[in-house]
């Protein structure tokens, strides 16, 4: 364990809490701009069809209606859209703010109604009549692949959104040819969604005289929002100011502005008046972006001792009609991360992504997580075929400390991971062996108890455009500290944890720091809060800037004290000669000298007490964890009760353990929700059936198990030793739970490979 610092490593209570607890947060729906209009969308009620006409006359006649915009009015003059992460030259993903000649999913925005009040906006939207000639929906991914008659995007000539061809090898062929056992299974994951408690929304204001656009947005990345506005509207980025206040969760959904947000920005520019759009929950579930729907076929070759000798993977993803970002495929990331915590000598990974006439896929907490969902279920299935306990099979294949540094079959290099330690810690914490004995005894009495494990290795994504972040640290004239960052914290507690890092390394009191983020006019460029990047990239920037400012303050103090900088120490917002507390100069005194009393300073003493640094991270920093769950399945009702839930996590040096555990818990409940409750259902005709919280079931406090934590702390090679961990909770929980359920059902000879594992699904499997 690393020794905790004064602030780093402490469960400091959050700076952001008092305002959020008393109703004084400032979310986008709280923004009111003089003259502001309200937008509502008219959406398609059919999954696929030709748009023969849109009658807007009655809506336009309603008092208070400023405009009704269809594609014909809104689109002229708009430029192509692309996300920075995908690059300008990525294969063109279909994009248009509003439907024009046809509609491609239920919820496809057809028109934008802009009105004096939100209530009348919804009245007006109801008066718009769209004449749609239905076409056959495109729903089945396998069938859609070969279908050239029914195309989601006719202009592309195919429903294939993306393809990653298999890259086999002679080693892989040899592994399969000589295997003692080859097991193959296809795992299905259903469609579920991010569902932040705050829906999407923005207020956009165009200043025609200054040709400046201001956007207040619920976003995970104000700079990316700005970049996309700049591309679509053809505006210079400095002419666009994107401001985020408090944001009510995102989980990936708010990483990139989607069609509706872009339509509102285009409308405000066209109308020259501020426009607000707050998505309602029905819209959010219908069209705010979906995730997870895919299937993965895994073939494992193993020797007679159960050692993996090779793996073949085939993935089929349903990316809906308009995915974000890019073509919505996660295959590239999945192919790199698939080997995870195991020694897999040879691997091939092939994938196809398919467009369907459903809501597009968006990023969701660990977007590539099917690799872990399928891999960990496959380990349990292989263990069953081998007649071996899944814990033992994992022990035989897991990467150990002696294996490091380890290069995976996909080329990832691990230096500081500890999957074997987290496996043993989780097994110990949950009392694995004792549970097996209890399980055997209870099976005799007819109770269905099960235990499931899942290991994973989580990459902090800091490659390409995600690789740097910036921080400005400024000593203000009163000796207090402004910390200005390119982050976009929307629940991740960065206002607290980044201040902890700065206080630790600058040597100031935590209470002296004020954190500022989320205004592109003032903050350093940031790639957005997502991808488990913050503890690595943002904290790296905060630390680097704090150390640079500290050096400058020490240089100033050395000049004033006529001492060598090396003889000085910084503590509690003061600098003095080591061993001579009476010599200490408070930061306020030094700031006063630099800003106001500089005439008295010796030549060369620094007066610029403001530092901006950018931190450049390595492409990946890996954390790891093991989840362990025990469950009981009721054979009559199909109800799954989670008895215990344990997570052993190694995210390196924890900046704030309380925040780390909060991130784990939130992710785990999202995974539990996915396996047991949440299901975005389309019927056979392509109509969404779960567009309210009465149909789309989120877990509540009554369903939440008590989560138990174990920590292994292996410092990363980064300065500070941190690793990212924001997504892992949602990545490993689905397979841990699926494995526990299947372990419980094992005496009945049942092995489920499809989610959700709802009571109905389990009862159906139990019914011959």
């Amino acid at each position, binding site marked *: 364990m690393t020794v905790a610092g004064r602030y780093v490593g402490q469960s400091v209570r959050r700076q952001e809490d008092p305002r*959020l607890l008393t*109703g004084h947060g400032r979310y986008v729906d709280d923004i009111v701009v003089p003259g502001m209009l309200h937008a509502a969308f008219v959406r398609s009620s059919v999954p696929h069809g030709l748009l023969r006409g849109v009658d807007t006359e009655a809506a336009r006649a309603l008092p208070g209606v400023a405009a009704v915009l269809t594609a014909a009015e809104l689109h002229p003059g708009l430029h192509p859209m692309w996300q920075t992460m995908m690059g300008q030259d990525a294969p063109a993903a279909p994009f248009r703010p509003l439907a024009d000649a046809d509609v491609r999913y239920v919820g496809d925005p057809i028109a934008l109604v802009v009105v004096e009040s939100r209530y009348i906006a919804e*009245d007006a939207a109801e008066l718009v009549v769209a004449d749609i000639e239905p076409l056959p929906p495109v729903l089945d991914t396998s069938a859609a692949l070969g279908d050239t008659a029914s195309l989601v995007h006719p202009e592309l000539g195919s429903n294939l959104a993306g393809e990653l061809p298999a890259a086999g090898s002679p080693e892989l062929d040899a592994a399969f040819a000589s295997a003692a056992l080859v097991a193959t299974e296809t795992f299905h994951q259903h469609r579920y969604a991010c569902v932040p408690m705050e829906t999407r929304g923005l207020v956009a204001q165009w200043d025609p005289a200054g040709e400046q656009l201001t956007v207040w947005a619920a976003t995970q990345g104000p700079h990316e929002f700005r970049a996309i506005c700049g591309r679509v509207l053809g505006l210079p980025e400095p002419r666009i100011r994107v401001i985020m206040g408090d*944001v009510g969760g995102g989980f990936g959904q708010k990483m990139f502005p989607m069609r509706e947000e872009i339509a509102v920005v285009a409308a405000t520019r066209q109308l020259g008046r501020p426009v607000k759009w707050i998505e309602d929950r029905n819209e959010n579930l219908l069209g705010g972006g979906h995730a997870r729907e895919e299937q993965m076929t895994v073939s494992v070759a193993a020797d007679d001792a159960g050692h993996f000798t090779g793996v073949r993977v085939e993935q089929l993803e349903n990316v809906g009609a308009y995915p974000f970002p890019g073509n919505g495929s996660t295959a590239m990331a999945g192919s790199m991360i698939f080997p995870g915590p195991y020694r897999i000598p040879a691997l091939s990974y092939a994938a196809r992504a398919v467009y369907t006439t459903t809501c597009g896929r968006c990023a969701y907490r660990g977007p590539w997580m099917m690799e872990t969902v399928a891999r960990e279920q496959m380990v349990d299935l292989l263990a069953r075929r081998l007649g071996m306990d899944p814990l033992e099979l994992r022990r035989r294949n897991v990467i150990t400390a002696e294996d490091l540094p380890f290069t995976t079959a996909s080329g990832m290099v691990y230096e500081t991971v500890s999957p074997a330690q987290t496996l043993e810690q989780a097994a110990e914490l949950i009392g694995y062996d004792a549970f097996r004995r209890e399980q055997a005894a209870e099976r005799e009495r007819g109770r269905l108890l099960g235990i499931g494990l899942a290991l994973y290795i989580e990459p902090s994504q800091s490659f390409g455009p995600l690789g740097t972040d910036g921080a400005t640290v400024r000593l203000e004239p009163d000796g207090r500290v402004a910390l200005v960052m390119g982050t976009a914290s929307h629940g991740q*507690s960065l206002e607290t944890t980044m201040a902890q890092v700065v206080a630790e390394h600058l040597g100031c009191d935590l209470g002296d720091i004020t954190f500022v983020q989320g205004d592109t006019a003032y903050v350093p460029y940031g790639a957005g809060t997502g991808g488990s990047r913050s503890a690595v990239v943002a904290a790296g920037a905060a630390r680097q800037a704090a150390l640079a400012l500290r050096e400058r303050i020490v240089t100033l103090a050395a000049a004033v004290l006529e001492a060598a900088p090396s003889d000085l120490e910084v503590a509690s917002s003061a600098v003095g000669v080591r061993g001579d507390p009476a010599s200490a100069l408070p930061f306020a005194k030094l700031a006063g000298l630099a800003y106001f009393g500089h005439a008295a300073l010796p030549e060369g003493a620094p007066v610029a007490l403001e530092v901006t640094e950018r931190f450049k991270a390595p492409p990946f920093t890996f954390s790891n964890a093991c989840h362990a769950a025990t469950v009981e399945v009721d054979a009559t009702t199909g109800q799954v009760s989670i008895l215990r839930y344990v997570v052993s996590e190694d995210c390196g040096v924890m900046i704030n353990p309380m925040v780390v555990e909060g991130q784990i818990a939130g992710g785990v409940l999202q995974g539990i929700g996915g396996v047991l409750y949440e299901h975005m259902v389309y019927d056979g005709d392509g109509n969404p059936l779960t567009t309210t919280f009465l149909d789309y079931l989120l877990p509540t406090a*009554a369903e*939440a198990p008590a989560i138990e934590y174990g920590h292994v702390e292996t410092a990363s090679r980064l300065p500070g030793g941190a690793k990212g961990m924001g997504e892992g909770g949602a990545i490993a929980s689905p397979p841990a739970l699926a494995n526990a359920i299947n372990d419980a059902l094992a005496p009945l000879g049942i092995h489920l490979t499809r989610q959700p594992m709802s009571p109905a699904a389990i009862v159906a499997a139990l019914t011959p």
Partner: protein
Amino acid sequence: METQVAQVAMTVNGTPRRATVEPRKTLADTLREDFGLTGTHLGCEHGVCGACTVLVDGAAIRACLMFAVQADGSEVVTVEGLAPAGGGLSAVQRAFREEHGLQCGFCTPGFVVSLTAYLRDHPMPSGAELRDALSGNLCRCTGYQGIIAAARRAAGGMEDQ
């Protein structure tokens, strides 16, 4: 279409307030737009998520499901009205901070108001009763761990089960 309007008067967080509203205007929108109390959040507008929970004559209600005209003459308390007059946090709010019972904070006002009303009426709840009481509010960030711990702390350190 002629728009009807109605006058409403209510006491909100101890202060008499008046507004002219359409009969279809919800109490939540009236609190937010007419009275500037934006701590009451709208997460679903169909009565499930509980983010808009406020007290009307002492009872915890969903302000998205009540029209402002129905609250005419009532005593309304929102999340802004729970903290002590001199500043600081209420016992429930302090417990949420202490136990990391919030992350993004969007659902938080609803939880705080709901729990405040529940503990007022049930000073000695069991752990299971607390979980049940909290199950009318949705949170997507915390996995409910910090919220349940905060509820126990605010209830006086009651043990679960």
